[in-house]
């Protein structure tokens, strides 16, 4: 049976930030590069035992996509909400 990939996704206003939970390796680069500190390490554990980031301050997101560009594991992406 195909397991559905679990997403940690938050939307407000203009942007939606989604984290693919089981791809994250908890390197912390997305949290470091975010210029306005949207992302915070969550308490969720994925199947490899890492804590993926959580976009808690999503209402401040400016959509620069630095987290998406700097993620080494294709685990985070930013979409514009129409």
């Amino acid at each position: 049976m195909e397991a559905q990939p679990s997403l940690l996704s938050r939307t407000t206003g203009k942007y939606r930030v989604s984290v693919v939970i089981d791809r994250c390796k908890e390197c912390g680069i997305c949290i470091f590069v975010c210029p306005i500190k949207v992302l915070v390490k969550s308490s969720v554990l994925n199947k490899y035992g890492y804590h993926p980031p959580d976009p808690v301050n999503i209402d401040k997101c400016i959509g620069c996509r630095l987290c998406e560009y700097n993620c080494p594991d294709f685990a985070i992406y930013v979409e514009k909400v129409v």
Partner: protein
Amino acid sequence: MAVTRQIHPLDKHLRLERIPTLYCPGCGLGIALGALLRALDKRISEGAINPDKVLWVGGIGCSSRMVFYVNYDAAHVIHGRAIPFALGAVLANPDLLAIVTGGDGDIAGIGGNHLIHAARRNIDMIVLMFTNFVYAMTGGQVAPTTPRGVSTTTTPRGNPEYPVNAVKLVGSLNANYVARASVTTPHYIEQFFYKALGMRGFRFIEVVSTCPEIYGRHIGLRDPVEMYSELRKRIKYKHKPSLEEAEIDWERGIVIGEFVERSNPSLIEILKGVRS
């Protein structure tokens, strides 16, 4: 069970059954791969490149394993011999777009002679060299690009040798495009690779990468974020820098930019008689 449904915008270029990659947490290679795929995606959506004609070739090493994760025709060959394999493929079928990926040990160390002669003959291929300053996959032995004085697994009292400067070496030969980017500037990797995809001849891009697990352990930057921020402080972009500025010096900073741009006739063009 791996995540196989496409969710991320780059998932159509990846072999999802092999994701997550084997790279250590915080490895810069994943950032570089994402940037390369964005540039390739842009060229494919413009109609300039046929995805069926793209060939990725990798030798041995962490960076060469990149060809495992891309959803294109790919070959994984013996250590240092990725450039000769790509040369054979391009000569047999000149329509192919050959992309060679490899680390500094694979391209500049073991396959250094192939690099020199491929650049001299201006063969139609793109060579991407990911510099992480050590042989990381085998445990951190000294590589030809290791800076002087760094203690590695095989040089516990500090590296006594001078490193090779691959950008200056290739730039002094007949290569058509020589550039350097860093994983802390993924937009420049994307921009340079996008430009290289639209050119002919030998194109060489060096990507300075972070290796927190192996190289970071040797220089005392074990944390991925710490190593990323230390490298980012040292990266300086220059518009059209000269080859004299290409030296990698951890203290004085690492210059990135497009070092060489030429329009010399490539080997395929000479053989076909298009240009001489």
